[in-house]
């Protein structure tokens, strides 16, 4: 039973990171039907910015939690700037182009950002400081769940509640929902659609950056390539949950994380990915729009 709980918590931790990143994919898709392949790179940039900020703050003598908060905030700000610019440079000019064009542009941006970090920073693995301290009260159960996992779970939960409130109760949230339903109609009633899209990218990037900082601090290393695999997994999670659906992305992330954890724990880690993607295929056969996705008729 203890083993089950350990695997469950491990899966939940991994799943909530997937969920954080998946939200960015699903929100962007919901509004402009674009799969933003460069989203994983935003996550990676978030982690890198936090790494650099940590280095600087350590020199100035800051400590643990204060570094985590400042580095986290700066990582979010930077990633938001990247996300905003990305949309402006690579996707907005292609707004009315055929759907494949922005997709190719997204793949191009992904490759560009990876290599940009590779050249501007380093191809090496860098040690990321363990910003989350070991809490005293956690010590007796540290082998089941450590403080980094706890922080990840709590942060993810808080972030998601805030996101839900933002979408449900704020003006921009309402505008986002309106744009998602019908872009030209939203424009007609006076919603600045371009601003809504930019905001969506910014929010998605912020979530990815939070995920990036949490993961980097959890596993203790950053590299220019970490965004690729995380991006693929998060995209899978988004599709699993029903792309375009916000609760779907969260559910998809958690389901994917738990599946991987249990597959590795009870069967074999050789088959971790086999089970993760097998599940995706299965769900897409049974529910082509994903777990919580609504099948929409394409207007031709």
């Amino acid at each position, binding site marked *: 039973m203890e083993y089950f709980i350990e695997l469950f918590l491990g899966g939940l*931790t991994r799943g909530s990171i997937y969920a954080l990143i998946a939200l960015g994919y699903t929100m962007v898709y919901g509004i402009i039907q674009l799969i933003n392949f460069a989203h994983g790179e935003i996550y990676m940039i978030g982690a890198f910015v936090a790494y650099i900020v940590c280095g600087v703050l350590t020199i100035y003598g800051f400590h643990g939690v204060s570094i985590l908060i400042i580095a986290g905030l700066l990582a979010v700000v930077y990633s938001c700037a990247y996300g905003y610019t990305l949309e402006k440079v690579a996707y907005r000019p292609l707004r009315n182009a055929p759907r494949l064009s922005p997709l190719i542009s997204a793949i191009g941006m992904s490759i560009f950002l990876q290599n940009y970090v590779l050249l501007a920073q380093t191809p090496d*693995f860098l040690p990321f400081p363990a910003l989350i301290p070991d809490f005293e009260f956690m010590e007796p159960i540290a*082998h089941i769940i450590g403080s980094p996992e706890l922080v990840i779970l709590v942060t993810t939960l808080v972030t998601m509640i805030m996101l839900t409130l933002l979408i449900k109760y704020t003006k921009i949230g309402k505008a986002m929902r309106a744009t998602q339903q019908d872009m030209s109609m939203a424009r007609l009633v006076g919603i600045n659609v371009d601003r809504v899209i930019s905001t969506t990218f910014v929010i998605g990037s912020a979530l990815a950056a939070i995920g990036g900082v949490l993961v980097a601090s959890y596993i*203790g290393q950053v590299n220019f390539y970490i965004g690729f*695999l995380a991006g693929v997994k998060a995209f899978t999670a988004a599709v699993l949950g029903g792309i375009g659906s916000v609760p779907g992305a969260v559910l998809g992330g958690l389901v994917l994380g738990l599946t*991987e954890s249990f597959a*590795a724990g009870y069967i074999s880690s*050789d088959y*971790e990915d086999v089970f993760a993607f097998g599940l995706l295929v299965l769900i897409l056969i049974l529910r082509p729009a994903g777990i919580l996705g609504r099948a929409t008729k394409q207007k031709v």
Partner: protein
Amino acid sequence: MKGFNLLLAALVACVTLATPTLAADTIKLGVAGPHSGDLAPYGIPAMKAAQLVVKKINAKGGVLGKQVELLIQDDQCKPEIATNTATKLVTQGADVVLGHICSGATKAALGIYKDAKIPVMSPSATNPGLTQSGDYPNFYRTIASDDMQAKLAVDFAIDKLGAKKVAVLHDKGDYGKGFAEFAKKFVDESGKAEVVLFEGITPGAMDYSSIVQKIRRVKADILIFGGYHPEASKLVAQMKRKRMKTAFLSDDGVKDVSFIKVAGAAAEGAYMTGPRDLSTIPLNAAATAEFKAAYGEDPGAFFQEGYSAAMALLNAIEKAGSTDYAAVTKALQTQYVETPVGKIKFDGKGDAEGVGFSVYQVKGGQFAELK
């Protein structure tokens, strides 16, 4: 009378034909390897090593009072050419052969030398089967075979650390998986410990918490990991976070400063195998200096191993007192010789004892060689 004459003539003819070998006033050392083509950089340093050794020995009066003659043949690392090379060296009357370089070419040529009863010593062919299959009793090498690292790791885990339950993980790559499979095989064969877990992990995965929990669940004494440092860093960090005492032992791919840099405190106490530090062996530095003096550049791949092989072969002939196959074989297996790769002799299968890898441990942020 007539019959006697004929017999005499036959005898004379026989003697005349046999003269080149019987009345040989030189010891013939064959050198085979790629000396042209794209793999030449692997063969030329060993050839130059042989030339340096022979020059030095000849200057001191040769072996058994005879000068050593080099017979150099190019096999381009190609098995089909290697058989021709071998035939040629046999016909030229080579007493011992230094070569070949590539495992494939070596394997192709070995049968021919075996039939001709010529000891062969490679500085570089690492395929385990060449010695372990027992098919080539005339074969020796001055480099560790591919599985030597795993063998050393397993022996260390079982004999020095007293591990009973061994978890073996790999990164699914050729290098890591090869190491892990050999390690599993050696643990199984030892009979003193059992493999309680053998799995591959996905390189670059977000975290390895499930597999780490699994290692804890099977209560492994030691984790043997085949792979590279990024995954190793994550594994040791997560094991430390789970407050586990399981020892960590890995391969050459982890013996990289990045491992210590990235894993930090979690790397402390981790074991890994890696090539022995040869720089402390005086002969090693001397051989390098000799090469630099002769060619004005740093020696390339397998130079030290080639130098050692040439020394070992000629030393064996000297000790055996003849070029007789059985005597030379016995000398190779019983007489120690000081070479640039250490003081070596060969085991019954032809692998040099004491050559190759050492176990290292991370101590105070440094790799410390455990003797």
